[in-house]
């Protein structure tokens, strides 16, 4: 019985308004408690994965599984390069074309390069890469882990005294973080390159466009973009691993499908919300000046 149903059944019906207020209140508490429980589980998974990764990197006698990490990096990142290039090429073209008429009207057509570079390095590079990876890597990780649960592979790992977090979560999480950062660098470069080509089509000098792009992005802008990418990658990896491992053996293909869909939805929501938080923090600390 759901929280809402139990509240409905237990209400003593003093008045319509009071009854519904009680239902809404108790449902809200139930949903909040469930949400906080899930957030807590995700953070516990992060803590365990971080501890295992730290020991694997720095303490002797602890294995990390570098082969698995490399395999996951290829799967998560290398195979996503063409699609990241394609999307960033399109965005690097759309932005100048959209802005050119208005900026040309004010005699500021050259500023297209500045705007394109700032938008790309600070926001669109990491954001678009993360959104692509939430579908490309996140969905695939959740589906894979969910299927492993239903086919008893996770139980077999545990019964063989092998920790699923070390074997499955750590390589996937690290690969997602590293490859989101690396792909963001590629996305940034592609967006500038695409902007140069579009600028040429609009009659702008490519050298001037390139110089303006380079001068528009300082080290802080570049690094903050990569920090964002690392956080987005962590969110994707964590959400995908958590939801994949949360599938119950009896849920079968339906549970796997649900985990996959939820991974994409939750990842995109988490990425966009954290992007907004990052922007507010960086803005308030004057990192955008």
């Amino acid at each position, binding site marked *: 019985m759901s929280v809402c149903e139990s509240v409905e059944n237990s209400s003593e019906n003093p008045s319509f308004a009071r009854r519904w207020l009680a239902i809404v209140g108790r449902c809200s508490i139930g949903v909040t408690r469930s949400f906080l429980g899930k957030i807590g589980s995700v953070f516990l998974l992060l803590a365990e994965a971080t501890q295992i990764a730290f020991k694997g990197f720095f303490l002797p006698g602890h*294995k990390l599984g570098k082969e698995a990490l490399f395999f996951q990096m290829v799967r998560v990142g290398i195979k996503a390069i063409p699609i990241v290039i394609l999307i960033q090429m399109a965005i690097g073209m759309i932005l100048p074309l959209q802005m050119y008429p208005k900026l040309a009207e004010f005699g500021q057509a050259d500023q297209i390069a500045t705007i394109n570079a700032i938008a790309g390095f600070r926001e669109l590079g990491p954001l678009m890469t993360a959104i692509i990876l939430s579908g490309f890597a996140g969905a695939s990780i959740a589906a894979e882990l969910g299927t*492993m649960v239903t*086919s*008893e*592979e996770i*139980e*077999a*790992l*545990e*019964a*063989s*005294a*092998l920790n699923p977090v070390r074997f499955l979560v750590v390589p996937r999480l690290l690969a997602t973080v590293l490859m989101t950062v690396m792909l963001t660098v590629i996305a940034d470069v592609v967006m500038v390159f695409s902007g140069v080509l579009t600028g040429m089509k609009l009659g702008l000098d490519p050298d001037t466009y390139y110089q303006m792009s380079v001068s528009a992005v300082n080290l802080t802008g570049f690094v903050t973009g990569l920090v964002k990418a690392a956080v987005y990658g962590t969110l994707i990896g964590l959400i995908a691993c958590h939801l994949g491992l949360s599938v119950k053996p009896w849920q079968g293909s339906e549970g796997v499908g649900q985990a996959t869909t939820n991974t994409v939805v939750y990842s995109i929501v988490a990425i966009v919300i954290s992007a907004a938080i990052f922007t507010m923090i960086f803005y308030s600390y004057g990192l955008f000046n």
Partner: protein
Amino acid sequence: MTEKTDPSPILIISELVKSFSNQRVLDGINLEVYPGEIMVIMGGSGCGKSTLLRHIIGSIAPDSGSIKLFGQEMTTLDDKALNAIRKRFGILFQSGALFNSLTIGDNIALILKEHTNLDATTIEIMVKIKLELVNLREHADKMPAMISGGMKKRAGLARAIALDPKILFYDEPSAGLDPVTSAQIDQLIIDLTKKLHVTSVVVTHEMDSAFTIADRMCMLDKGKVLKVGTRQEFEWLRDSDPADCPSEQDRLIRQFLRGDAEGPITERKLTSDYEEDLLMASLKHEK
């Protein structure tokens, strides 16, 4: 029956209770398994035998009761101690549960790499030895998706014996296999138990298989142990005349062992809540 050299049980289950959503799945299970024997745990679908196995291997914590494996209380162990125990037993899952991203050989090598300090050459030799025991040596480089159900079970068995366990658990080893492959798996269980001097606990509802491999048998019904005895005792019950089974319990076990369509199990299913169910349905629509 295999001669018992050590009188103390290797596995002792006492008063084990487990409920899921207010439904009692295990209801005070008591069972002892002795070193070197093949104990078959049997019962109908949903009687709690697979749940019992998952409690024994530490996958599920009970509500109450005790499980002592190798003399250690499994229900109170922390993860580290539990993993130390897990290295001393092997389990064959119903589906084989091979790691699908690894080859058959790598499935076995993974266990050896993680839990031993053996070099790569020795591990390769060990993998070949384990695969030869289950007649799969020539399939070491194949992926699990490329082999049949019977081969998956044999590969799962090779992985289960990777660390030379003292006790082997089998969850429905013959389920879903053709009669010949099923018989081969049965023979493999007997051979491995003798060759490796291990104790085997087999969960199954395949009666032909159970009577082929068992030294002792345990019959579960609705989360309770109905009877524990030697294979001969169960064979006698199976082949007996209904008149020789005075108790309801014996008649129930006899029907299960014989696979008869009629008997106490069928009557129980036919009479259970049928009238109440019909009455509730009519009342629901009257409202």
